[in-house]
């Protein structure tokens, strides 16, 4: 088995308890592989450490144990190879939307001329529908949806090898969320971008992801299941609900979040399988195969 593009190996995060009590283990033994070009969503209740995993992938946080290997190199510290979109947009409020993108592009492509940087930035801002003057506004003069579009444009414009999305649509209303999801899928389809995304929205995960990772509740959280979404692309919000697998997957996810995330929670005995079991849906119903790991989703239509 070849090494995946991105692999999380025995990742754990513990916080030292005050006054030397037993350390709080947020999650442990997280083992995952993500292939190049894959779109992976991770779902779990608050406090299970999804954001910590994402921050570790970003290099903003460090695991207590284990390592993250991307492209054969261990991740240490933040890098332009990993772009991030945060829920709170993280735009610099004193810069215009355009400048928020150009400073990043300039940092990525240091040898580019001003014009190259400008044109490249505008290309991505236009992709998310910000042009015709809106790009010159400050973030405070833009709606939440527009701000998140700028943030997404910035992340794509630096063309990172791995794109990390931390609940990017969490603060948006349902209508805006829908249209930005469509835009995200459109931009992503035209690239070979690997995406790792945190979400709380089951429908969003099915619409976007090749694979959905399910985390049990913390403490001692772990990635319990990896649900394969084999619904063919391009997917559209209007049509996807008519696909025969859609509700099977949806019910499986909801049921996991409602009951099994609790049942499976808690410290694992040693020797228990460290990798998530793979769940697939198809004509024959649910197939769970604990050994069938890291199967890349290749059903990507253009």
């Amino acid at each position, binding site marked *: 088995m070849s090494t995946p593009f991105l692999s999380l190996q025995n990742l754990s995060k513990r916080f030292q308890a005050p006054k030397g009590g037993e350390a709080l283990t947020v999650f442990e033994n997280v083992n995952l592989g993500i292939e190049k070009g894959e779109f992976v969503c991770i779902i779990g209740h608050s406090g299970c450490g999804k954001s910590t995993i994402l921050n570790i992938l970003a*290099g903003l946080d460090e695991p207590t144990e284990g390592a993250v290997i991307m492209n054969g190199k261990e991740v240490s510290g933040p890098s*332009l190879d990993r772009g*991030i979109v*945060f829920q709170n947009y*993280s735009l*610099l409020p*004193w810069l215009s939307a355009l400048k928020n993108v150009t400073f*990043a592009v300039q940092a990525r492509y240091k040898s580019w001329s001003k014009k190259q940087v400008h044109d490249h930035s505008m290309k991505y801002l236009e992709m998310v529908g910000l042009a015709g003057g809106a790009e010159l506004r*400050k973030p*405070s003069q833009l709606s939440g949806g527009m701000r998140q579009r700028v943030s997404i444009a910035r992340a794509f414009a630096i063309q990172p090898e791995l794109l990390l999305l931390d609940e990017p649509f969490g603060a948006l209303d349902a209508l805006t969320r829908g249209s930005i999801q469509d835009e995200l899928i459109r931009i992503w389809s035209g690239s070979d971008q690997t995406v790792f995304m945190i979400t709380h929205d089951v429908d969003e995960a099915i619409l976007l992801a090749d694979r959905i990772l399910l985390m049990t509740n913390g403490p001692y959280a772990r990635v319990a299941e990896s649900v394969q979404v084999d619904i063919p692309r391009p997917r559209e919000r209007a049509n996807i609900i008519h696909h025969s697998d859609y509700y099977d997957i949806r019910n499986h996810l909801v049921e996991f979040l409602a009951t099994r995330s609790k049942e499976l929670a808690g410290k694992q005995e040693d020797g228990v399988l460290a990798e998530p079991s793979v769940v697939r849906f198809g004509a024959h119903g649910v197939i769970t195969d604990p050994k069938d790991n890291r199967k890349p989703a290749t059903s990507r239509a253009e």
Partner: protein
Amino acid sequence: MLASLNARALVLSLVLLAVFLGLWEAASPKQELAGELTEYELLMGGAEPKAAVPPPSDVIAKAWEELSNPFYDAGPNDKGIGIQIGYSLYRVLSGYFLAAALAIPVGFLIGMSPLMYKALDPFIQVLRPISPLAWMPLALFVIQDSQASAIFVIFICSIWPMLINTAFGVAGVRKDWVNVARTHELGAFKTAWIVILPAAAPTILTGMRISIGIAWLVIVAAEMLVGGTGIGYYVWNEWNNLDLTSVVFSILMIGVVGMLLDTAFAYCARLVQYQE
């Protein structure tokens, strides 16, 4: 028909000013022309009016006279108000910008490094409450120059608000923005320039504005001590001349210049202000 709030406030201000000036004018004792001169008065060459707080009409007349020729120079004891204010501004601004040149970089350092913050904090806490004029004797002795000593006093009083506000602003930059710099691999200099400085600029400018206000307060007292030139010296000199009209006029000028300085800094603060 409600006029705008600003217009109504302006009208009210003018009314209050008129009432205040009217009361002041009415309360000022008229200088009576003495009918019969005492022997003393005759010896003094006529009626020497009693010193009293002058009425506003006198002050306005004085202001007109002074401001229509602000830059005359008739010897060390008789210079135009413009020259005096010019000297004061020169001292304030040179002391102030020297202080800024030190306080802002050091503030940056303290804000970025918790170690430096803890190490320098005791010094700052002891030095900050010292009245700037308390430094004057030491400054005069060490520097041996009254001009430079006045500038030093301005320097030492301007430094603290700028230092503390810069450190506070830099330390308080939102972690999200620092993370933006980190994830885009900005170097230390670029991080300071693109993220930290603009983020902390409003707080730094607030410190600079407080400092210039304090510097202008202190220069008057400092110039009363060192003498020679400047608006503070002018006030004290006119008091010695028992020219109360000039004293009142120069008090007003101190207020006006202080206001202009503050307005200038408020304008700069608006330039760097951002909305989250």
